[in-house]
């Protein structure tokens, strides 16, 4: 892609292979540098060693609450935008303490998308989030 500009780095955390690879396909196609992992702990490890502009997580990863993972990732990568793709049940959102969820929801670096996600919407959200971080 455009060589002069640094390619934005995206970390995709999703335990289902199809979804993970699809995100990679779409985002790489749109010019992002994509790293994928299926494991929340591995994701935390990756963020410790690498810089990511955007972390895309499913709201359920390896049995742990995706939202908690999103909060953890947000703490470790203060400059990254955390985009959580939620399956849309309130149950997912009621994990964790209310204060933590409140903090997560109010943080400007967090975003939510409800499944099923449209490609155009996904790209728009990712573009907006990373553009601000340019």
């Amino acid at each position, binding site marked *: 892609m455009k060589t002069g500009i640094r390619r934005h780095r995206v970390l995709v955390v999703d335990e*289902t292979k*199809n*979804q993970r690879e*699809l*995100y990679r*396909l*779409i985002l790489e*196609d749109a010019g992002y540098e994509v790293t994928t992992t299926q494991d929340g702990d591995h994701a935390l490890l990756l963020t410790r060693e690498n810089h990511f502009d955007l972390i895309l997580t499913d709201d359920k990863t390896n049995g742990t609450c995706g939202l908690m993972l999103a909060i953890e990732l947000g703490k470790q990568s203060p400059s990254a935008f955390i985009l959580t*793709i939620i*399956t*849309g*049940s*309130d149950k997912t959102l009621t994990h964790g303490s209310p204060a933590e969820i409140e903090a997560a929801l109010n943080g400007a670096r967090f975003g939510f998308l409800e*499944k*099923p*996600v*449209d*490609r*155009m919407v*996904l790209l728009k959200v990712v573009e907006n989030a990373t553009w601000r971080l340019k």
Partner: protein
Amino acid sequence: MIDRVKLLSSFRGRLMLLLTSFLLLTIVLVLVLDRWAQKRATAELVRQNQQVKSAFNTSFGDFAQAVSLGLQSLSSDDYLYEVIGHVEMPSTLKDIIVADETGLVKDSTLRELIQQQIKVPPPPAGITETQSIDPVESEVEIEGGLIKTYDIPILTQKGLHWIVLVMQQDAIINQIDAAQVALAESNRQLSNYRLGGTTGLLLFALGIAVVIGWRFTKPIEELAGAAQRVASGDLDFRVGINRRDEVGQLATTFNEMIAGLKAKLELEERLNLSERAAAIGRLTQTIAHEIRNPLNVINLSVDQASAKYAPEDESRRKQFTRLLSSVKDEIARLRHMVNDVLNYGRPAHLAVESVDVRRLLEETIQLIRPQADEQNVEVTFEQDNESANVIGDAERLKSCLSNLTINALQAMPVGGRLSARVRRLDGQVEVTISDTGVGISPESVNKIFEPYFSTKKSGFGLGLAVTKKIVEEHHGSIDVQSQINQGTTFTLRFPVAGADS
């Protein structure tokens, strides 16, 4: 609460009354019989006295006659047994014996006694020829038996003689006996009367007791039958016993029991039903939730394919695009259904603000207008110029309105008219959405707000259930009026914003 049984109409009371009156009647009867018997006994006593008196009178007369016969025997040579054929023997005397001082029989009405020795009392003192003394009671042995006698001493020139009067033993006693027999007879008669009277009363009381008992126990059979019906599970009847006694009370209690059992059974059925509905709800929610993951993959894949892998060839690309857009349509439908299911079970998180319902309805109508035009449906929107603000969640209210308008369109596949109206009425905001479509059958119209009920061939049947839930979360109400092939009208009413402040 059951009224207490009045004493006089109760079985106990009646039985008590019966027994008391029977007792009183018996006492009265016995008293009356006693008085009557007393009167009779007095009369009888008087009569017997008379009889005894007359008996004694008779015997005294006889006595004098016998003495004169004895004297006659002393002064004549004729033997008494010879004379007695011509002279009548007094009725109370059996025989007359004349004996001297030593007891040697000189004369007698019994021939065999003459010149025999009999027992006589010792000579009495102070007896003179002119002065007679009282007879002496003695006995004489005649025909092997001792017979009571009255010995009268007579002093003649031939010395002291005894005129022994042998009494006709039974004469007086017979008369007294007759009186006693009459008395006994009257006593027997009296006790017969008493027995008869009390037996009659007892039988009468028994008869009444049997009637009361029968009348009392007859409905118990009906109750027993009813209890059997209840035991076999029949609760759709009432015991038709209308009485004021204990059985009536029992019947009333029984009916209350049946009603209570029925209510409990219905409650249990309703609970079972709602439990089942909740279980189905949980299951559908889980399924809906799980559908979103594959749906997400399909959706993104289709998007990616149509964006990146469209064929170069014009006509092929058209076909490709049409195929993928129909897939997108189906995904949208699935998404809608899944949202319905998840929204129905989702607790209310209302984003509370003041919402202009007129604006919401206008927006909703704008959204469905293209579809309406396609189906040749005329859409009208009516509103009075009063504000129609409602406190609530705009997104959820809008989903209500769009549910109703989409339903209306689906009811008119070959054209018609959709009328939407907002107005203020009695301090409420009233929204009506009417169509001229197929209508809803009367048996279905009560069920359309129930979850998982649908008249359509597709969908979960949650649209109107969600709509109703949202309306109720906004303290509003929803009503429906429908006629088959005439159309359907939904009426929503919400409290006006600021009405309570």
